[in-house]
């Protein structure tokens, strides 16, 4: 089955949000702060307004409604008010008849800044009472403890301090959209996003419009990975459109995009694992500090994940975790594939390797000895009530054939450095490493997480057709195909059309948390069942009629349903206890790397993975998700980092923010298991995020095995390997 957008994307014909066009439209541009922290003494928009071709120049004073917005807390100003809290914060907007004019006009706005001390150290923000507050309410966004048991000594103790750099989602389609003023005083917004309705919820109050007058339609999305959960240009373009009465398009350039969305939280983590001499965990203590940057975004939920999943998929009787999310004047951080579980996974898996070494066990054996299984209790007290065959997955992974030894006559492309020819084999050592990850699927901690589907069966040209309408965002993951598959399967009708996603149907929730196959898939399934029941009733009255004749007789059949997964509970604020997660997914990775230990360059030779997905819906799309998630984890291990110094981003470009190429990502060996989750539609388990967790520690462990170095930080830089400090 071909995905409908596949050929268009490969041939370059797919219409992305940046391709939107209306005759007579204006172009919006955003003036952003060059400073991570400053007072704004004055803003003079006069020089911009005076430029020919400029239609509007707006500041916070022009925001029609509420001045602040945000996913979890409304702490982010639509446009800066009297101060800026990060480099790149939006200060003013311009609409002009040409994008170049708009940019130049934005640059002509005169802002008088009084630069002040920037808070850039997350640990200081968390623990130093003398640290200046980034917001009046302080620097702590969330502190989530987990407290289980009281035994915090053990025969074997391993400790470590770990650091994860700031990763970017690096989607290829920059933030973009088109706002069209409506005749009713409202606005129609075409935008690439992950969740139309939560955008609508945030945009409407800032425009002082009722929600029904802010109509959103999904435009072509060029990747998301969490970076489109927060608003970017939505309110800005709408403000300009309402002010000028003309359609306004905003497209960020690549550099602006690095300032236009949140990133993965950098983390600093201290871990202590205590175990028996034979490697069984007695306790885990951890302190996890996540740098949320200037605004809240989804930091509280990220902290919740880091805390609740902070020991990994292991049975531990005693747990003492403190996870913190803090404000700083660094770039705002929020959702990215893996969402708080990635950072913790790198640390606890590094610890498991240290524990293996301390106990004289293999990395696989120490994990098997502590692995969760169905019936295990997580650190939150939640019982794993669905299949979780981690030990078997590890055994299967270990037994998979490896890539084989390097041959004598080697293609440069198979060596560290590739065709850049830094070695012909000199200094190259092989290493193997393992990683295990556990990820919550769907929204956690008591969130009312649902999706809506509308399904219509009607005769078109004498043939029965199905129209499936949801607001779920296709962000490249292949949800369109899944929805059509479900409709075909449930209704037995071949002709299925997926209607464009927009806000004229109820919310589908976010294309995040690996949840859409589960929740929107579940909604489409439930709605198709309702349609089928009606068809069955119609059939019961006229057993002699065909489906075509029934539809001819009764007309179209349409049903709309909301689907909810089973409820979750919040984490106890003091102990972290609670059934906070809907579903848990496991992935395990083995990485084989060749490291040029003299130059610090790494070639990942092979990545093998075992993942339990409950039920395979679309094998090709699923494998793509596992490959892609693995590649993103490899990127975090070896190269992907937004370098921030004194609150300023040093590498806002794909020239210097490196993501893996096809020569960096090795072939993968996959084993996909189908142990169904009885609570989920078809028994499926969300699949997009888990591989992003475990590939990072697996690659890092393999590099450690090749070099014998500690490497407590990812991404691992060449100099971390090649220039080992004398003391280290």
């Amino acid at each position, binding site marked *: 089955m071909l995905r409908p957008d596949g050929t268009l994307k490969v041939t370059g014909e797919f219409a992305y949000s940046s391709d939107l066009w209306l005759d007579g439209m204006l172009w919006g541009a955003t003036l952003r702060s060059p400073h991570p922290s400053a007072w704004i003494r004055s803003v003079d928009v006069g020089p911009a307004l005076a430029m020919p071709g400029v239609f509007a120049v707006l500041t916070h004073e022009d925001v029609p409604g509420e001045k602040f917005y945000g996913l979890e807390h409304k702490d982010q100003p639509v446009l800066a008010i009297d101060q800026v809290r990060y480099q790149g914060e939006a200060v003013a907007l311009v609409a002009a008849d040409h994008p170049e004019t708009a*940019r130049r006009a934005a640059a002509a706005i005169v802002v008088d800044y009084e630069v002040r001390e920037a808070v850039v150290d997350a640990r200081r923000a968390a623990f130093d009472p003398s640290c200046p507050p980034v917001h009046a309410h302080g620097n702590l966004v969330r502190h989530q403890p987990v407290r289980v048991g009281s035994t915090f000594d053990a025969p074997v103790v391993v400790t470590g301090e770990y650091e994860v750099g700031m990763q970017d989602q690096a989607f290829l389609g920059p933030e973009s959209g088109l706002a069209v003023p409506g005749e009713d005083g409202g606005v129609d917004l075409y935008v690439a996003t992950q969740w139309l309705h939560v955008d609508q919820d945030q945009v409407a109050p800032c425009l002082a419009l009722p929600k029904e007058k802010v109509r959103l339609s999904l435009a072509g999305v060029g990747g998301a990975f969490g970076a489109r959960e927060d608003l970017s240009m939505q309110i800005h373009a709408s403000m300009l459109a309402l002010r000028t009465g003309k359609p306004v398009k905003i497209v960020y*350039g690549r*550099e602006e995009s690095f300032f236009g969305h949140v990133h993965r939280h950098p983390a600093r983590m201290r871990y202590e694992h205590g175990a028996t001499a034979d490697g069984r965990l007695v306790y885990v203590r951890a302190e996890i500090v996540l740098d949320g940057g200037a605004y809240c975004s989804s930091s509280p939920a990220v902290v919740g994940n880091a805390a609740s999943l902070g020991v990994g998929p292991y049975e531990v009787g005693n747990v003492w975790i403190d996870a913190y999310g803090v404000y700083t004047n660094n770039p705002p951080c929020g959702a990215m594939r893996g969402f708080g579980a990635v950072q913790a996974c790198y640390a606890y898996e590094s610890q498991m390797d240290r524990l293996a070494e301390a106990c004289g066990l293999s990395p696989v054996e120490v994990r098997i000895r502590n692995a969760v299984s169905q019936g295990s209790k997580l650190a939150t007290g939640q019982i794993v009530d669905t299949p979780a065959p981690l030990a078997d997955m590890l055994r299967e992974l270990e037994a998979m054939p490896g890539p084989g030894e390097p041959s004598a006559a080697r293609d440069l*492309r198979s060596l*560290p*450095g*590739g*065709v*850049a*020819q*830094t*070695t*012909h*084999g*000199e*200094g190259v050592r092989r290493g193997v490493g393992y990683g295990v990850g556990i990820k919550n699927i769907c929204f956690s901690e008591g969130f009312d997480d649902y999706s809506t589907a509308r399904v219509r069966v009607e005769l078109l040209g004498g043939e029965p057709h199905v129209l499936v309408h949801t607001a779920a965002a296709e962000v490249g993951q292949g949800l369109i195909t899944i929805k059509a598959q479900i409709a075909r399967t449930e209704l037995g009708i071949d002709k299925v059309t997926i209607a464009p996603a927009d806000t004229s149907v109820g919310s589908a929730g976010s294309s995040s948390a690996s949840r859409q196959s589960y929740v929107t898939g579940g909604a489409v399934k439930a709605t198709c069942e309702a349609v089928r029941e009606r068809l069955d009733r119609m059939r019961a009255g006229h057993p002699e009629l065909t489906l075509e004749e029934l539809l001819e007789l009764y007309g179209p059949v349409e049903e709309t349903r909301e689907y909810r997964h089973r409820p979750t509970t919040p984490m106890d604020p003091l102990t972290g206890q609670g059934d906070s997660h809907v579903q848990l997914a496991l992935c395990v990775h083995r990485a084989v790397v060749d490291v040029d230990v*003299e*130059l*610090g*360059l790494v*070639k990942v030779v092979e990545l093998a993975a075992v993942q339990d997905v409950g039920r395979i819906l679309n094998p090709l799309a699923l494998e793509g998700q596992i490959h892609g998630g693995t590649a993103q984890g490899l990127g975090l291990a*070896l*190269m992907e980092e937004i*370098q921030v110094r004194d609150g300023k981003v*040093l*590498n806002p*470009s794909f*020239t*210097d923010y*490196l993501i*893996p*190429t*096809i*020569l*960096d990502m090795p072939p993968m060996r996959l084993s996909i298991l189908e142990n169904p989750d009885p609570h989920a539609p078809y028994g499926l388990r969300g699949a997009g995020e888990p591989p992003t967790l475990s590939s990072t520690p697996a690659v890092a462990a393999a590099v450690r095995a090749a070099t014998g170095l500690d490497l407590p930080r990812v991404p691992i*830089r*060449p*100099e971390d390997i*090649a*220039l080992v400090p004398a003391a280290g």
Partner: protein
Amino acid sequence: MDFLRPVTWEQALAYKAERPEATPIQGGTDVMVEINLDKGRPAALLDLNPVAELTRWSTEGTEIRVGAGVTYTRLIAELGPLLPGLAQASRTVGSPQIRNRGTVAGNLGAASPAGDAHPPLLASGAIVEAESVRGTRMIPITEFYTGVKRNALRPDELIRAVRIPAAAGPQYFSKIGTRNAMVIAVCSFAVALHPGERRVGTGIGSAAPTPRRAPEAEEFVAAALDWEGRSPLDPGAARRFGELVAGAAAPIDDVRGRADYRLHSLAVMARRTLGWAWNDYTGRGPA
């Protein structure tokens, strides 16, 4: 912004004489990026693509004359045996799409210290053929780079070709990047053996304000090598060569790498590439 589109080389020179501020453009892989990033806004672009003669290369005696419009892709496909060092460097430039458009002359025009073509040009002793309505100048490559992104071209001059001695001995190019393809050099190094002259050429990239040679290293190793008897490379001499190459560099800390790592990796690349070249020369086969 004016867009000048000469059809002949003479027209191109006339335009450049008339509009010395015009920026020449061939593949556009540098110029267009700069324009898109709003870094500098040329008053005029001088499009050399229609000038067909620039896309030719020829052999002139022992020299290969590479027209300013010859792309990296063609250089790799057509000139690998004659200019192995430059072909190896070309292979590391950007992506296939970039190599289909980009040219060595463009690399020279931009004169970025990180340009991949510079080290092998230095190691081979290339000559830049610059021309204006006033005449032709043959600029030795060592005199071409005058500062960060600055070169010896006069305002009315255009690069017509690069003249590079055909390889008379083994050549190697090596470049550090933080990923295995499509990466700007953290630093790079080229070595060329000139057995006839008993000389070793070097070129250092991305580790000083300009691409540069390592003269002391060249002299040291030329004397240390057993050209006559072709005995194996002394590891101590190879190491010393690496140290001297690093000593010739003046790198900085920047977003792509640290100065101390650049020095370290230059020494390693110099030692390794010399070893490969010497093994080839002495017939010991690939290292």
